[in-house]
């Protein structure tokens, strides 16, 4: 007989679904099936069970092949590398628990490293904008229960956050939205006719990279001022109509994603989107929220925030925390050749950084801590496999609306495999010994 573990947290995207049911074998050792999760979440749970996992650290040999080493050797290499380096980069932190992040930050403080998380290639520009102009936001629960105007700007949750719409934004029946999607009007702004756009009441097929103009045009339209005939490829009549639609709601929300953060203008796009939200609050209640990607990238920002005062790109090399995106951000540091060692945990820059940055990682002493085989592990000098957080070990995570949720353990990791936190704790201890500090 199999048994079902209820209320499991899905460790894939920032939606952090908390209603997953996992069927495990009678002895509680293997996952048999996953219910309620999206295709990506289910694949993540099932992949942990495949026999092809790497279960011991691997060191790159001069010919490029990899040789198995013990965890002790891996701890020694990592600690030596971090202590010897003058300016190591410790990057990632988004696919792990807040507890592990905290140990990582302790190491970074000791060795004088730069700590950066995946926001640097995701919502980093959002964080800069929030520091510039603030952010009127809310929780996903409020959206489910109250929101009747939903705007997806430059994001495609159907593909990136597959259950977002059914759990929070379009379909659920909430306290004041008891007719579900019939209570809501959905606007999508995207240069492609995305699968999210196909579900919308109104789709603005904007010219790519013209978000700043269109956001400004909505702010003009709200004030009933004159617009040119076309803005960003959209006729002015449609913009006036859209502004009316936004104003006429009782509670509106703008969700935004990589379409605005990664296009030119970057943080200024978000500045303007936040100011549009502020303007809309003259007429009705409006909020704005970033569609965070990794399940605990928000947590990394939170932990860095309360420990050092900044949410990403934290430079501890001078013994105190500095923050200057463009200077202390991973891609700028790598491209300019300003770091001399790279430690990656809970992320895959090998696949998701521009290739010019990846080449630098391959040239440097480098450690990749990741349960999967990834392009990063295959160019790093050392690959340390670990347990999957949220499946094989619990831990605290933050949802995209900054709500902390404790992830649960479902099954044991493969025999002898350490968790992120255990590995980091051992590295921390060894770093302390090498440096003569506690």
């Amino acid at each position, binding site marked *: 007989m199999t048994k079902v573990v209820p209320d499991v947290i899905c460790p894939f995207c920032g939606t952090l679904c908390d209603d997953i049911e996992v069927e495990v074998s009678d002895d509680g050792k293997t996952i048999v099936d996953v219910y309620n999760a999206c295709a*990506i979440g289910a*694949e*993540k749970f099932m992949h942990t069970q495949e026999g092809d996992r790497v279960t011991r650290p691997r060191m790159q040999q001069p010919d490029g092949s990899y040789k198995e080493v013990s965890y002790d050797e891996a701890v020694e290499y990592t600690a030596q590398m971090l202590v010897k380096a003058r300016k190591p980069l410790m990057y990632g932190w988004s696919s792990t628990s807040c507890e592990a992040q905290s140990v990582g930050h302790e190491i970074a403080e000791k060795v004088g490293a730069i700590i950066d998380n995946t926001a640097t290639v995701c919502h980093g520009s959002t964080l800069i904008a929030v520091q510039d102009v603030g952010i009127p936001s809310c929780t996903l629960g409020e959206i489910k229960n109250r929101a009747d105007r939903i705007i997806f700007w430059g994001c495609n949750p159907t593909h*990136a956050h597959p259950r977002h719409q059914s759990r929070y934004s379009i379909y659920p029946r909430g306290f004041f939205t008891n007719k579900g999607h019939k209570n809501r009007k959905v606007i999508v702004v995207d240069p492609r*006719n995305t699968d999210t756009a196909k579900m919308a009441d109104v789709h603005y097929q904007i010219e790519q990279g013209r978000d700043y103009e269109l956001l400004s045009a909505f702010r003009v339209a709200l004030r009933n001022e004159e617009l040119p005939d076309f803005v960003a490829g959209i006729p002015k009549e449609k913009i006036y109509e859209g502004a009316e639609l936004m104003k006429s709601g009782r509670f509106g929300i703008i969700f935004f994603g990589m379409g605005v953060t990664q296009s030119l203008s970057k943080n200024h796009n978000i500045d303007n989107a936040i100011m549009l939200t502020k303007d809309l609050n003259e007429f009705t209640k409006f909020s704005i929220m970033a569609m965070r990607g990794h399940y605990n990238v928000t947590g990394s920002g939170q932990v860095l925030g309360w420990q050092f005062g900044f949410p990403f790109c934290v430079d501890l090399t001078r013994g105190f925390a500095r923050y200057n995106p463009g200077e202390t*951000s991973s891609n700028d540091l790598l491209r300019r050749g300003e770091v001399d060692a790279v430690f990656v945990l809970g992320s895959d820059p090998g696949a998701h950084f521009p290739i010019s940055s990846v*080449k630098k990682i391959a040239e440097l002493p480098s450690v990749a801590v990741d349960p999967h085989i990834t*392009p990063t592990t295959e160019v790093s000098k050392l690959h340390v496999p670990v347990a999957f957080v949220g499946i094989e070990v619990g831990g605290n995570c933050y949802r995209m609306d900054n709500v902390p949720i404790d992830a649960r353990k479902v099954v044991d990791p493969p025999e002898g495999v350490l968790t992120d936190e255990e590995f980091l704790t051992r590295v921390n201890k060894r770093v302390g010994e090498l440096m003569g500090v506690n």
Partner: protein
Amino acid sequence: MTKIALNLISGRTIHQGVAMEAGKEKDAYTKACGIIEMDPSDLKKLGAWRNTNVRVTSPYGSVVVKAVEATQGPHPGLAYIPMGPWANSVTDPNTYSTGMPTFKGVPIEVEVAMNEKVLSSVELVQKKCRGEV
């Protein structure tokens, strides 16, 4: 040989997400992300059939991917490579002092490369790092 100029963006797809979680070293990941989604009108301009290998070149690099018809179109003039090492072989690494590379809005040229192979993610990144491709 015909070359056409397009504007490239990248991003997530559900297939990219599933294949990524199943293992980036596997074929499914190459099938999900080693592609370029192009509008049918652009494929016609290029004179390419669907599912033809093409070489994508930007001021920042070059990569071979398979050209497929846009799944979330129409979007003439715009091309889409799912996020991954193939997109990042040609993406614009300039951050303009924000820390954020310019992953969306990269000027590219596309030409047919029928006899060239789409490399797997690990092969592609390792070869790029060694300067072999």
